[in-house]
């Protein structure tokens, strides 16, 4: 049986394509860059920039904890090698998909995503109304479901529920009991 390749979720691509060393010796060194994969960049970002623990970070990336630890260790090794040997770092490649959040407009009914996570979505890009709700999986929504949505975030793993905070996508919330990513109650993929 061939091993199934799992895709790792990366929230946003990095701002830059890599790093270059500088200093008098840097021109004489081997120009072959160290290749930091997108998932290695993301592991470092979640763990040491967003300060998540390895369990939370593995949930965010959709991988098991041992896998996360392996990706993270590889990221550190590569960066250390680039520093010590004075090599460039190229951030590219890897088995990843980029993930953005979906919203639905209560005014015109359209669905749209937010490709720039840093920006908060305040209004519908199509009709301009400010009445928008966040959710996952626009393709599987049907009218019936949409009408019965409650403004509740639920943990798909243990069932913990909390009130939805407007403006914060449910899947940005991490379950306080089991640290699984939360979902909006009643959406597909959420069996509770």
């Amino acid at each position, binding site marked *: 049986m061939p091993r199934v390749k799992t895709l790792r979720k990366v929230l*946003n*691509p990095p701002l830059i394509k890599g790093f270059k060393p500088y200093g008098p010796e840097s021109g004489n060194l081997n120009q072959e860059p160290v290749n930091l994969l997108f998932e290695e960049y993301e592991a470092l970002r979640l763990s040491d920039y967003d300060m998540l623990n390895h369990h939370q970070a593995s949930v965010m990336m959709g991988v098991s904890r041992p896998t996360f630890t392996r990706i993270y260790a590889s990221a550190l090794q590569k960066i250390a090698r680039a520093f010590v040997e004075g090599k460039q770092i190229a951030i590219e490649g890897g088995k990843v*998909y*980029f*993930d*953005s959040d979906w919203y639905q407009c209560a005014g*015109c*009914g*359209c*669905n*749209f*995503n*937010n*490709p*720039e996570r840093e920006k908060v979505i305040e209004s519908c*890009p*199509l*009709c*301009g109304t400010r009445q928008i709700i966040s959710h996952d999986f*626009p393709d599987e929504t049907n009218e019936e479901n949409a009408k019965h949505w409650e403004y509740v975030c639920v943990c798909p793993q243990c069932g913990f529920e909390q009130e939805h905070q407007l403006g914060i996508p449910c899947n940005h919330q991490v379950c306080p009991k089991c640290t699984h990513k939360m979902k909006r109650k009643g959406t597909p993929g959420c069996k509770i």
Partner: protein
Amino acid sequence: MKIAIASNGNTLESCIDSTFARCNFFVVYDPETRAMEFIPNPNKDLEEGAGSASVKLLESRSVQKIVASEFGMKIKPLLDSLKIQMIVVKGSKKTMKEIMVMLNH
């Protein structure tokens, strides 16, 4: 801010096309200047890769948002990586004119 709309024709009365990658025309619209351009989709008959070819075309026109009734599943990660926003208008018979009026909000 340029916005592309997947259209089934090249007039203001044309409707939103049923697919993004193989639509007949892309309408590139700028709500600030009200400038619009109808671009025939050169990828509509491609057997494979119509989606990514269409994305490349629109990226080269500096489009930052795309309005369509459906995007293929492979398109989402590509558009996410380019930070192009997807606006999905499902099962609608809206005309280009109606959509442009909405975009002028």
